[in-house]
């Protein structure tokens, strides 16, 4: 269903030494966020707009946005191990651990921290979609019956139609005894409760 267009992306993460002389140990991290087409169109319509996606480095130290083709870059990053997070409403992205090596520039390692999956190139895809709302169950007779009201009615019907059956199966002797007992206890019967019942 989700027709992911197979895009051949070559090495996207290149840590080239920067052009400025004073910041020799500063690198760029380039990558791409790819939200497969087809995702996000089912369920409630999500604005799958790339303009609302933010890419965050090291817990908000740097924040950048996506270009129309999904590429992003962080400039002037020192060598070390960094964490990249993607914030996009409607999608769950795993944070990515990125090692920027000072010794051999150009060599880069990236891995998803959620499942420790290594990435050969810095293409970030959502692990899953996020549904923020419960989905209303379509109307069914069962749900109506399971509601407190339905149960009340059901219970009443059961009493009205099954009770006589139970009473019928009872031993007449026992029945009489039970009725006498009830009378002696003065338990008001249903008919005596009702306005007309007093006439009996």
């Amino acid at each position, binding site marked *: 269903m989700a027709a992911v267009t197979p895009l051949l992306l070559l090495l996207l993460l290149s840590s080239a030494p*920067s052009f400025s002389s004073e910041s020799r140990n500063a690198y*760029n991290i380039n990558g791409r966020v790819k939200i497969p087409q087809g995702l996000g169109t089912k369920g*409630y319509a*999500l604005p799958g*707009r*790339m*303009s609302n996606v*933010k890419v*965050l480095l*090291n*817990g*908000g*130290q*740097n*924040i950048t*946005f996506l*270009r129309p083709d999904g590429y992003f*870059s962080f*400039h*002037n990053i*020192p060598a*070390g*191990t*960094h*964490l990249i*997070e993607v*914030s*996009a*409403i*409607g999608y*769950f992205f795993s*944070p990515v*651990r990125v090692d920027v090596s000072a010794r051999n520039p150009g060599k880069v390692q990236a891995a998803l*921290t*959620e499942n420790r999956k290594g990435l050969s190139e810095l293409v970030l895809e959502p692990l899953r979609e*996020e549904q*923020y*709302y*419960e*989905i*209303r169950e379509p*109307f069914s007779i069962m749900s109506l019956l*399971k*509601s*407190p*009201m339905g*149960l*009340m*009615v059901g*219970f*009443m*019907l*059961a*009493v*009205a139609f099954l009770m006589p059956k139970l009473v019928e199966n009872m031993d007449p002797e026992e029945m009489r005894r039970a009725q006498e007992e009830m009378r002696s206890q003065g338990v008001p019967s*249903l*008919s005596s409760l*009702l306005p*007309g*019942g007093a006439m009996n």
Partner: protein
Amino acid sequence: MAIRSFLILFILFFFSSLNPILSLYEDQVGLVDWHQQYLGKVKQAVFHTHKTGRKRVVVSTEENVVALLDLRQGEIFWRHVLGSNDVIDGIDIALGKYVITLSSGGSILRAWNLPDGQMVWESSLRGPKHSKSLLLVPTNLKIEKDNIVIIFSNGRLNAVSCIDGEVLWEKDFEGESLEVQQVIQPPGSNLIYVVGFASSSLFEMYQINALNGELLKHESAAFSGGFLGEVSPVFSETVVALDSTGLILLTVSFQNGMISFQQTPISNLVKDSFGPAKIIPSSVTGIFAIKMNAVTIVIRVTDENKLEVVEKTNHETSISDALPVSEGQQAFALVQRAGPEIHLRVKLAHNWDDNLLKESVKMDQHRGLVHKIYINNYIRTDKSYGFRALIVMEDHSLLLLQQGEIVWSREDGLASIIDVTTSELPVERDGVSVAKVEHNLFEWLKGHMLKLKGTLMLASPQDIAAIQSMRLKNSEKSKMTRDHNGFRKLLIVLTRAGKLFALHTGDGHIVWSYLLQSLQKSKVCQHPIGLNLYKWQVPHHHAMDENPSVLVIGKCGPSSDAPGALSFVDTYTGKELSSLSLVHSVAQVIPLPYTDSTEQRLHLLIDADKHAHLYPKTPEAISIFERELSNIYWYSVEDDNGIIKGHALRGKCTGEVADEVCFDTRELWSIVFPSESEKIIATVTRKLNEVVHTQAKVIADQEVMYKYISRNLLFVATVALKGSGEIGSVTPEESWLVAYLIDTVTGRILHRVTHHGSQGPVHAVFSENWVVYHYFNLKAHRYEMSVIEIYDQSRADNKDVWKLVLGKHNLTSPISLYSRPDVITKSQSYFFTHSVKTIAVTSTTKGITSKQLLIGTIGDQVLALDKRFLDPRRTVNPTQAEKEEGIIPLTDSLPIIPQSYVTHALRVEGLRGIITVPAKLESTTLVFAHGVDLFFTQLAPSRTYDSLTDDFNYALLLITIVALVAAISLTWTLSERKELQENWR
């Protein structure tokens, strides 16, 4: 027997039908929650109106927001919140379709697509040294059909292509002490002038070819008097500067590469001098302004570089940028505040004497002065020019004026909230206006019939729309009186502009707002800062007739010994009751748990000299306070020195400060952290008003554990000095994090735990007997959350009933913090996916309802996480008894369930804080999250077990009852008839 089993079955059914629904259905959005979007104080605005079509304006703000607004209504078309250290230096529109932003000290240049806000390109600019950042978008300067953007930043001049952000050429200005002040591009030419000062007395001018960056001319001239502050360009080859004394104006002209100075002492221009002046730069040709103390002087430069005062005023004046109107003419606007009105004048640059427009607009007193003005013109139907003005007020609000009226206004001060508190609404009484709720029974029934149709899926689309609007427009929720459930309250917020707002929790509308005079710039106080809000008076019991009030604490200037300022504001009327300018500073505020006979809460203010001052300053308050003198303890944290100190009171102040309400303090204890290995990065205590229902916790096997509940527990997190930097700057071996639990009365460390290979930032929350903290684990390279629970062992023997009966328990033995507490702690850690901005915990009136953590994630969403997930007693395989108790099997990471985002599909951009307030209904807590946006909702962590939900269907209940009665009467007649027949037989 049969009946009983039936009943049991029925009850089981009944409860199973209440299956847990934690979250929201999509059609419930907006029922109890509201979301408001703001921008912050506007720094710069650029109009986009030349084409026919939608009139729009691009703004950048002090909250690092860049946004496109609709000029008709002030609505946001799109908005981007940049990072907190990505401060916007300049914005402009290029090619009529891109918004260009320069940010991060001139090192990041971005272009955004104007209609939809999609980022088009991003360039990183670097340079040799730190400098002023200037952005210039010349309209008709082209290199090979490519429009360019000129940026001066970090000591380098760059020309960047508008289309793809490529740097076309760059030129360094490496002069040792060169401070570039202005970059001027005379319209219609291919030249760029870069002017600046070097070694404080040299004026430097560089003439550059804009097409290739070639240096054409470089001239410098010395001026012995030196220079001060900024320069203002008056003509394309003339600037105005001030000499170092601030008393002489210099007109510097560099026509044809010849620099010439012309000095004009300010005393020659105005009779009475008011001390050193300051230039207010303007882009208007031939006009600039200076400011001396409170006096603003507008000066015109004639063609022969003669200066001429055209206006001198005591009013705060704002001047707009130049707006090109027809035939190379420029218009500009001046705006002043005078009493209840603001006066707006639009003039042509070369013709001071005539006004193109003169208007007076009535303006709310609580918006303060006009800080900024931007103008734009339009052509009226009679072909004459009309002007609209966008103004930024002292309270950070943004207004559009047109034809002498306020077209729209935005309360953008609410984007920078400093502190929040709540207040109850008035009790419903005669005379208090109450909106009509339901018209009559018929309407009410009709509403419920519609609802019923909705549940039975019989409703037509119109009906569904009607139901939705009926639910959203429920007038009940925005009534101005207290409700039975305590859902309706006032949120009192203090903004950075020094304005108080009261927001209604029902729909978020502003009930009142008040610009605090004590937090406004004045002669005595140049940089007032608002600090905190406290509940000053919460009347109940014996002061029912009083209105509640809040205490606003501010101080004058950022230094620690700056004098404080107090204001008392009535929360019903929004009027200031009184204000006080303090002689002492405010380092710490302690709301005491005592109130006087009018329900005013006693507050203790600690100043920088460690004196304590009691407020209110009444004899009654002093007598209450003196009784409790020996019971008051507090602590102070000096994070720079790594010291935590405990304090107590000693007695009345001695020495020169003879004040009834001043008390001397003494230091009780101090904890000094080794400065070479530990640095304090977070301290958290319990909320003062938190209610704990029970100390006992019944665990599986009928065992009881006693929570160690003390108001005086402090959580402290320290990290290794190296690990206090950013993520990625240290290796796991050289970083560790230590968490402490400290008793703040005795200074005793109750618990200490070290997390090796971890680092900050630490976000923590403390509630009841547990603390949860979030930090970064460098070894796993993931975030972690840990929980510490602390239990009282000294009471552990009390679980024997016989002991209780025979009085052999120790429940009545006195509790003293001086005796060594016998505590045990349990802790556990879990992975957590996201970075966190803030953590809060739900709070309810009686503390019975289970708790949820509210985690403000880096994506500006608020996630509700059950405290049960952070239970140190979780095991991989819980026993049956533990399962019944509700213990969740242990997993290595905390689950993120999308449905438990309380902000659902919304973002609270720039999230800074989450506040929880208990409602009167025990199951419900009110949550307010603020940042650039505001978000409010109600949460029921264990579901609303004590009230029917909103979607409870009364009509269905009625129908059921009617059906039952009908069935009863039917069966009754049937049985009557049967009986009769049997009697006849």
